[in-house]
């Protein structure tokens, strides 16, 4: 073996070592943040005179304890996977887009609205449901795509504009649901016409979990491939790293930004479609359930990696599912889950400061060999 090949072997070993250390760091720091948040929240519970042990037991049994609660958790994780992706994809191109809630509501509303003439004319579900899904994704995609367009071509800050557009989307739904498209039968809670049981999206065979969960996993895989294995993804990530350099390289930065935002909006719109077609059966105020905002936290915890979004979404789906049990058994307000999420979010962002700080995760210094 010549000296050069020996050097090359050492370099490859070093590179894989560095990669493993990186991976360990990106696993251990967020998990540490989760543990720290759990400790802080337990202290909070002790201060207000509740038992942390009971709380975590209830979260466990309510979230994963039985096959019923597990399915409930996955059911709630389904929209979170999609809204998590809706934050993660723009984040990779350097945009902080927080309008997932609005795209979900608008997508859900649009699919419920398009369903009305189709259902009334007895178009079979096999045709109706794909049309509904497509319309929901298109509505969400255009809505958030516009945020990306405004960002690149008009210089409008995407964080503020996307949240404003969420409020506008909710107002649009309310406007129609309480007006032109109101089902006269919905007295207490203005809603669109129910799509009827024949048009409902059913469960994945053998479970009560609706197909939205499977769709979310499939989309997560597709988007992971798109973002890390294609030219598009490479260009997007490069733009996220340094937009000016990307532009100087001749990359179509504007097109990339608008596409990433449109993909994000389509994900959230699809979540809205499943909420309508699998859960509520119609569009009404129940669509505004905060899934879009929890999705932001899911994406941050997953470090904007589409695959990791799935398990993190399941975790928060379980916490949401157990929230009801905690509310009933411990007599705590429904905002308990919000407080826990807020603490996790803040602690998680504080933990960002620890990247590169621990000696343990740094590759050993190379001495004079390089």
């Amino acid at each position: 073996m010549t000296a050069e090949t020996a050097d090359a072997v050492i370099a490859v070993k070093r590179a894989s070592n560095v990669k493993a250390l990186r991976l360990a760091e990106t696993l251990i720091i967020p998990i540490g943040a989760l543990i720290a948040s759990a400790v802080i929240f337990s202290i909070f519970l002790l201060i207000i005179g509740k038992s942390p042990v009971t709380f975590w037991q209830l979260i466990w049994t309510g979230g994963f304890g039985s096959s019923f609660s597990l399915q409930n958790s996955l059911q709630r994780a389904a929209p979170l996977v999609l809204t998590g992706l809706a934050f993660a994809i723009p984040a990779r191109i350097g945009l902080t887009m927080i309008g997932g809630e609005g795209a979900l509501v608008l997508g859900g509303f649009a699919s419920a609205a398009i369903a009305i003439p189709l259902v009334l004319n007895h178009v079979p579900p096999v045709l109706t449901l794909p049309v509904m899904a497509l319309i929901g994704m298109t509505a969400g995609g255009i809505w958030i795509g516009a945020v990306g367009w405004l960002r690149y071509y008009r210089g409008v800050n995407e964080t503020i504009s996307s949240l404003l557009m969420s409020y506008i989307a909710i107002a649009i739904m309310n406007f129609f649901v309480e007006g032109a498209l109101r089902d006269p039968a919905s007295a207490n809670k203005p809603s669109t016409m129910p799509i009827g049981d024949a048009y409902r999206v059913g469960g994945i065979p053998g479970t009560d979990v609706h197909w939205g969960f499977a769709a979310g996993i499939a989309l997560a895989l597709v988007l992971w491939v798109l973002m890390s294995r294609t030219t598009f993804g490479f260009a997007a990530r490069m733009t996220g790293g340094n937009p000016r350099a990307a532009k100087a390289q001749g990359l179509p930065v504007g097109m990339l930004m608008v596409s990433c935002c449109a993909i994000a909006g389509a994900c959230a719109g699809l979540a809205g479609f499943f909420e309508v077609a699998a859960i509520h059966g119609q569009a009404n105020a129940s669509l505004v359930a905060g899934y879009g905002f929890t999705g932001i936290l899911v994406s941050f915890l997953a470090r904007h990696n589409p695959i990791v979004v799935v398990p993190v979404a399941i975790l928060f789906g379980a916490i949401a599912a157990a929230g009801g049990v905690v509310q009933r058994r411990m007599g705590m307000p429904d905002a308990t889950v919000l407080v826990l999420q807020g603490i996790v979010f803040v602690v998680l962002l504080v933990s960002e400061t620890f990247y590169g700080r621990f000696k343990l995760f740094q590759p050993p210094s190379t001495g004079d060999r390089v």
Partner: protein
Amino acid sequence: MDHPVVVVLVAMLGGAIRVSTPFMFVALGETLTEKSGRINLGLEGTLVLGAMVAYATSYLTGNPWLGVLAAGGAGLILGAMHGYICKLPKVNDIAVGIAFMSFGTGLAFFFGKPFIQPTAPHLDAIHLGDWTGSPALAQALEVNPLFFVGIVLAIVMWWGLKNTKWGLIVRMAGDSAASARAMGVSVDLVRFLATAAGGFLAGIGGAFLSLYYPGIWNQGLSSGQGLMAVALVIFARWNPIRAIFAALLFGAAGAIGPSLQAIGITQGYYFFNAAPYILTLIIMIISAGSKSAARDVPGELSITK
């Protein structure tokens, strides 16, 4: 005086004065924070927590002004936390703002649950319009003292930023951290204090919401007003005086829906409810492209880069 147009205009004037006050306080706080080179998007959460704390304090002590002070204190704590976390390396202030939005609202909903039902003592208004002899105009001119506090504060802040040593230090930290450090100024400390003070003001804005107008506490009290105020700061180009006028404009937009309802037009109520958001968005589109905004922006601000 009974012409429908007059009724709507008078109602909008009154509405503008009432609705604008929380905008004013949040916008003034955010102006100070952004002048120091940091952005706090979490003021929406501060506004909601301030509203809850003010209502609870007023209910428990019977003194609404104590509630205003407590709301400021709650805002101060949230602002100080935001300011401290943002000074850690590698932490993104926009993301921290989003986190505090949900943290503040979560805390407010959690502790505010028992206070949704009871009625707390409200802040008194100053009756400026009794001499007019018109009940509608008199009602429109019932102005809360906090409105005047906000205007005085804006003038003081505008003057102070321009003419005092403290103002210079804040502007220097915001325009060029490197030169501030060269002058021996601790940029982190300046920004910490500016963020904490901004939180204090936003908390007071929340107190106005729950203790004066609409004068109730519930979970839908502020839907995005704190965030609109942040957009308003950009529109006002980081000038406290202009922020007052921008807040009045936003207030008037927010009052369109209720004013039309006053003369019996309920059609499109939800559309007019969305008017402030649409107006904010349009204003952002116009002001983002303008050259004067680019000239006035603090150099260290991450949101406009």
